[in-house]
């Protein structure tokens, strides 16, 4: 296991003075093996980004805090085992980039617009490794080339001189350059068109096969989860609603929310009929759902019953399948 997340709970304060908060991630537990890709799928506002940021301890300070749980990361040889939750602020920079790194939907978040891309990657390397600048530059070029970018020709380009897909690939090169154990990818393809997006997915996949990196891939699109991941977590209002192999989640979803998600997009089912009206999940996700004492999906669920009025535990259905619902046969 490269990453073991146990009972992670993250508070988000809506009013700090009055100590009003909700758990934007609520007792989240899962683990990722070396070289495994797990998707986190859910609607916008369900807390996916917060989960990703919390793993790096990049969740916004003051308004949010990790209130319990652990994030255990170990390097491939198993020599180093670190609980990211317990690290002091000044120890974090050593871990970020080296053991765990992150890419975002918007490359502007991690690329500095006024520094040449080659120099940015060198900077990332030299922050962690003692080596000659020339050697670092060779490593940078190598990683750009792994990302199918002409490293020598593009070394001195500024981010704005590159297309959206290229910028995204530079970001992956920068995130991968220290060969981290875990890569968190937060919707890295959402702003790209189909073809460019496929290339970016393929390159993340390549890093998994060649560098054995474990990936937590955040997306709102089930078909992207299907393209890239081995396992899928269906996430709603801060909780894992269902967890299983990606094929199982898409072909035979069990949780009403997973079922609703698969039915609300065209052409994922085999018996698909054009222009058949899509399933619409009634209502919308609101912050009050995070605080609900019922099942958090209760207000929008087509299967709800009087048994759903208490907090619902995540049930283990088999060694690879979990679901948080009382109405699954």
């Amino acid at each position, binding site marked *: 296991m490269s990453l073991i997340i146990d009972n992670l709970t993250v508070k988000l304060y809506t009013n700090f003075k009055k100590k009003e908060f909700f758990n934007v991630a609520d007792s989240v537990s899962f683990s990722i093996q070396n070289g495994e890709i797990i998707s986190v799928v859910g609607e916008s506002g369900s807390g996916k980004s917060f989960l990703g940021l919390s793993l790096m301890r990049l969740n916004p300070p003051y308004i949010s805090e990790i209130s319990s749980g652990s994030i255990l990361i170990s390097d491939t040889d198993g020599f180093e085992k670190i609980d990211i939750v317990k690290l002091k602020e000044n120890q974090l920079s050593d871990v970020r980039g080296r053991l765990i790194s992150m890419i975002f939907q918007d490359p502007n978040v991690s690329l500095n617009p006024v520094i040449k891309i080659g120099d940015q990657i060198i900077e990332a390397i030299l922050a962690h490794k003692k080596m000659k600048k020339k050697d670092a530059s060779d490593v940078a070029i190598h990683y750009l080339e792994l990302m*199918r970018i002409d490293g020598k020709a593009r070394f001195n380009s500024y981010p704005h001189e590159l297309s959206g897909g290229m910028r995204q690939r530079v970001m992956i090169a920068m995130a991968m350059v220290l060969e981290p154990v875990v890569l968190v990818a937060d919707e890295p393809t959402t702003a790209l068109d189909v073809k460019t997006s496929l*290339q970016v997915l*393929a*390159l993340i996949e390549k890093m998994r096969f060649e560098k054995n990196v474990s990936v937590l891939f955040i997306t709102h699109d089930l078909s992207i989860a299907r393209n890239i991941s081995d396992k899928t977590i269906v996430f709603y209002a801060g909780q894992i609603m269902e967890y299983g192999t990606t094929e199982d989640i898409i072909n035979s979803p069990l949780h009403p929310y997973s079922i609703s998600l698969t039915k*609300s997009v065209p*052409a994922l089912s085999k018996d698909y009929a054009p222009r058949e009206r899509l399933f619409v999940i009634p209502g*919308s996700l609101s912050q009050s759902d995070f605080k609900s004492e019922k099942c958090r999906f209760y207000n929008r669920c087509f299967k709800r019953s009087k048994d759903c009025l208490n907090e619902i535990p995540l049930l283990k259905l088999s060694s690879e399948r979990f679901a948080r619902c009382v109405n699954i046969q």
Partner: protein
Amino acid sequence: MNTGKKPEVLNINKLSKYYLSYGSLFNFKRNIIKAVDNVSFKVYKGDIFSIVGETGCGKSTLSKLILGLTNRTSGEIFYKGNILNYNLKKLNLRKKIQIVFQDPYSSLNPKKKIYKIVSLPAIKNKIIKKKDALQYSMQMLKNVGLDEDYVFKFPHELSGGQRQRISIARSLSVNPELLVLDEPVSALDVSVSAQILNLLLDLHEKNNLTYVFITHDLRLVRHMADTVCVMYGGKIMEISPVDKFFDGPLHPYSKVLLESILAYGPKNILQFADAGNININNININAGTGKNRRGCVYYNLCSRRMDKCINNEPDLKENGDVQVNCFFP
């Protein structure tokens, strides 16, 4: 399904739009971008005509041309046999064609209340009097499944899906016959997108509307459209009935697009690592998207290319009920 019996609504004839641009900040050499290049097609009454293609292929430019929101470089647009000339401010023709944009945030005036936004085109086109604006807007909101009370709200008080309904209501307020939908759901969450797609299909059936549906998602094409038109580099590559297209398209570029949505699973996706990357050593400046090209726009990425394609440009040719822009379909 253009059996020829349906009356023709839109006839685009050899339409082009060139932009002049400057290569970069320090490069003052002017460059011509052929955003839409010699494009011809017909749309028949009651059809959903979809246009697909990757980012920058000219889809939005084409929609702006149809709406007269930008000047054309050459070519003609006929609406029901009448030539469209927006310079003459022929409002009675213009109101029959309306557009819905991708971004429901920027396309509504933030300072105006909903009823003013929705009724403005109807007042301008003298369909209603100003004093009836409120009543009329309430009716329009009902048509798109929104509560009448929303007329007094401002755009920022609404969710993305509600705003998209408002833009649809605004477009419908002048009783158009042709609706141009430029990526109407790509900025929306799955459940909201399902609602909007259902609404568009309902309105299409109820009001016998004709749609030009622009998207980069082939799954939506299959779900919504009668006819698909594939664009690349400002040109049309293929126009085909949708069912035929999904049985096997003729143009090599269409094949790549279709394969990309069928590529399921981590191993299959690896093949796309080089998608969209042009091998610099193999590039031919006489063909491709370069400004002085003589040959086919798709040459540099094409799997079927021959010497003939370098110096000769193919034309859209009929091949049964399919039109293909390729020497070797």
